[in-house]
């Protein structure tokens, strides 16, 4: 390919890729809050010390950590109809990404809470606060500062992992690239554009996280 014409080449395919990018952003925007919400819920039994539920949560986390997201997604998309549950590919994709990342996020949140010194608990109780009040007013803000960076990193991994929804037919950025190449016979440089768009997406989100981390830390620290 003549690289001097990369500009017009990009202009030709960018609109199509842009639509795919919007789908990728939409999937990530749905999956990220879902994953965080599930992750927080999964953390509760372990922090509260409910034995039985903690056991289930830990088993769940180990399964999610040690099996590929792609197979989990296949299980949801191809397996659920056998049980009589019919969900479209976007729902299954978002759910699979959320369920997997909820496990990682829960583990990060739990270790963040555990990393706050036990002396802080004692100090809170020493001034007469109840357990829950200590947790909400003393432990949680400190844990939040500790987990911000690892949670941000995990969410960037989540954005990258949304590319797997292409495997069950969601026309996201990755699948758009593939379709352009295979249907309109465009050359491999389309995937350089796809890669560049992902890189822009993850770096912009990463920069956004870093800025809000700095603000948040300043406000609480």
């Amino acid at each position, binding site marked *: 390919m003549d690289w001097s014409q990369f500009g017009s080449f990009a202009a030709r395919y960018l609109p199509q890729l842009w639509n795919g990018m919007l789908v990728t952003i939409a999937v990530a925007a749905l999956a990220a809050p879902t994953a965080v919400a599930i992750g927080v819920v999964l953390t509760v039994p372990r922090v509260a010390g409910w034995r039985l539920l903690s056991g289930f949560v830990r088993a769940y986390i180990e399964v999610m950590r040690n*099996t*590929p997201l792609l197979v989990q997604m296949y299980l949801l998309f191809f397996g659920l109809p056998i049980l009589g549950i019919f969900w479209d590919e976007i729902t299954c994709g978002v759910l699979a990404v959320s369920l997997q990342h909820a496990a990682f996020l829960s583990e990060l949140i739990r270790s963040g809470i555990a990393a706050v010194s036990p002396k802080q608990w004692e100090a809170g109780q020493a001034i007469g606060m109840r357990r829950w009040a200590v947790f909400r007013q003393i432990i949680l803000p400190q844990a939040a500062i500790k987990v911000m960076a690892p949670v941000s990193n995990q969410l960037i991994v989540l954005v*990258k992992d949304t590319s797997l929804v292409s495997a069950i037919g969601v026309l996201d950025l990755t699948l758009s690239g593939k379709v352009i190449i295979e249907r309109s016979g465009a050359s491999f440089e389309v995937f350089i554009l796809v890669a560049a768009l992902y890189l822009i997406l993850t770096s912009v989100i990463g920069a956004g996280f870093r800025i809000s981390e700095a603000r948040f830390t300043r406000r609480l620290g």
Partner: protein
Amino acid sequence: MSISVLLANLPYLFQGAVVTLWLAFIVVTAGTLLGAIVGTIASGGGRILRAIVTAYVFIFRGIPVLVVMFLGFYTFPALGIRLSAYAAVTISMIVYVGAFVTEAVRGAIAAVPAGQVAAAKSLGMRRLTMLREVVLPQAARLAIAPILNISLMAIKQTSYASVVGAWELSFAAREIVERTLAAFQIFLGVMMIYFLICYPISLLANFCERKLSFDH
């Protein structure tokens, strides 16, 4: 719904698992080697070299591995290199894993205490001797747990090779599902096989993390 369909197809799945293990072994070994070399060179190199390595790490950590696989899959033929999907995926993954290992190795080398370096210098060690005798052995300890976690990530990611068309465990599973329509049982069974492969490494990584944090 019975699991007999899973049992009947287990031999075929195991064939796929063997390919997955091979793919994972090659990718993890070569990727670790690549990352160890690049990370070590970058730690001692000049500004330009460091900038190139930083760009390499930044780019590959910023895009999905599936996209890197497609990139390899479409690029090699366009450059006139005829490769199987399997080879294209292997090379792509090695480069991808190499970026993660590079970052881990760089971090580990940077984490070797300054006092150790000062002591090595004061014994009259030159750069290569210092690297061999002091910096790398200590950095290796620090890098083991992160590299195990990267390996875990890579093993799971080998399943994405099926999307690009390389035959391995996940690909075999899809073939069986297309034939038998027993998606639930087969994919659940495949998850169990992956779990059996990954869980020991997961345990080892946790163990190393704990052990190394106690000693130093």
